[in-house]
């Protein structure tokens, strides 16, 4: 099978810092890939690089067999930045509709076909119940579903979800994951899903990319989330502790899911 994403020795430099170095990975159609790592490790950077929004300084990168940015029509991207529409009553549905053919010239008229596409995306994201309400009055979990619906516009063959679980309570996290897994089952879409905590995603992911110390490792969850593999990635001793069916990643100095250095992951508002 040919990979839909092929990353070979890719490096990214931003503002004089090496964010990523010698990252290599191949992702195949229909895979659910979890992307983990501390804050600021480069999870968002990796996604934005795959979208061609950030240039790479080394290596080869192809997405759907083309250079990054060329095949973005087939990619549904849910950015980490959040939509701010506090003083407007624009409905969630119209926010999703804004994405439909949003890159075309002219005025934002809707057609029968575009309305159907918007409804399809809202249904897939499980957001029918509140799509008519103003986006600004929705809860965090509901807003994230609407952003997922935006990403689903245009029937993407690849979904890149940047921290879709952030600031959700455990119940809403579980619902979000269930929803994404359902989308994968219904459409066969390949999924890149970045998150802080590996635990909620165990059982739905096929493979894992772990980003730390400017490097990344890809493989089966059990191989990557191991003391040996993570210690090598971080360049310091890391303990992977399994207890009560959960996985905890700790360094000698403390918990590593919080950043030791911060840059660029949270620069969007």
């Amino acid at each position: 099978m040919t990979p839909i994403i092929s990353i070979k020795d890719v490096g990214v430099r931003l503002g004089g810092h090496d964010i990523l170095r010698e990252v290599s990975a191949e992702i195949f159609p229909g895979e659910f890939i979890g992307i983990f790592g501390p804050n600021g490790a480069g999870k968002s950077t990796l996604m934005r690089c795959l979208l061609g929004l950030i240039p790479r300084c080394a290596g080869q990168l192809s997405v759907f067999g083309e250079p990054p940015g060329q095949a973005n029509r087939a990619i549904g991207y849910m950015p980490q930045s959040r939509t701010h529409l506090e003083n407007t009553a624009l409905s969630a549905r119209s926010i999703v509709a804004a994405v439909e053919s949003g890159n075309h010239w002219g005025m934002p008229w809707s057609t029968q076909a575009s309305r159907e596409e918007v409804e399809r995306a809202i249904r897939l994201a499980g957001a029918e119940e509140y799509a008519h309400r103003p986006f600004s009055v929705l809860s965090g979990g509901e807003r994230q579903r609407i952003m997922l619906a935006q990403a689903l516009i245009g029937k993407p063959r690849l979904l890149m979800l940047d921290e879709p679980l952030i600031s959700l309570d455990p119940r809403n996290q579980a619902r979000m994951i269930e929803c994404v897994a359902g989308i994968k089952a219904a459409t066969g879409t390949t999924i890149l899903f970045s998150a802080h905590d590996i635990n909620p995603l165990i059982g739905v992911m096929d493979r894992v990319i772990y980003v730390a110390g400017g490097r990344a490792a890809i493989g089966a969850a059990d191989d990557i989330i191991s003391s040996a593999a993570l210690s090598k990635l971080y360049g310091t001793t890391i303990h992977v502790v399994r207890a009560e069916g959960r996985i905890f990643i700790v360094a000698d100095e403390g918990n590593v899911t919080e950043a030791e250095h911060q840059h660029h992951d949270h620069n969007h508002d």
Partner: protein
Amino acid sequence: MISEITNYLSYDFVRNALIAGSLAGVLGAVVGYFVVIRRVSFAAHALAHIGFTGATGAALFALSPLEGMLFISTLAGVMMGASGNKLHRSDVAIGMTLSVCLGVGMLFLALYKGFSGQASAILFGNIFGVSRRQIVQIVFLSAISLGILAVFSRKLFFASVQPDLAEARGVSLSALSIIFMVILAVSVTLASQVVGILLVFTLIIGPAGIAARFCRSFWLGIVTSIVIGLFAVWTGILLACVTDWPPSFWITAILFVLYLITETVCRFIFRNE
């Protein structure tokens, strides 16, 4: 009452005021809707005040105040637009530029003595003083601005609502931002002809802010914004005729009352939904 109104309408200056006011109202309402969802109202406000420098400086270069304002605020619009989607966070930079521009405007006033009557007209608007030539200019500029906006509105709406996704789908955020700020600069200049620089905010933010507060779709928001803008301008001008109080006062007062009502009602509705 009706006969009184038709009597006022027989005056040229009232008719000119209504035409100029309607054009500025429509343009302000449409552009303002994007200002509200893009959260660049401070930039819009600043553009108007920066235009003051152009208006006072224009006399020194033998230009009309309108031409001077257009020049300066378009220039400022391009610079603001170049700072892209981060514009709503650059309020200190905008504030500093705004204050230095007002300072330079004062200098121009001091250098060109005898200009203060006209300066007051620029600051507070003199819609009853709009000439035939100005109306032609306003028609021309509104048509161009609305035409350009129509071509870009789909992309602009997408980029305003979800910039990162828009960028990923090939929409150039910086180009859109610059184009929009130039259109905004032109609208601000036109609106200032009607209500004056100090109150230009009202025509840009007022109708659109009120409409966006309760309209759930883009088109409903635009149309409602236009209706509110036209209502405020026409009622304001007619009340000004009747009472002999300044139209700027009436237009801003009407919009402020509408804003208060909307805000109260919306808080109630959205809390109980």
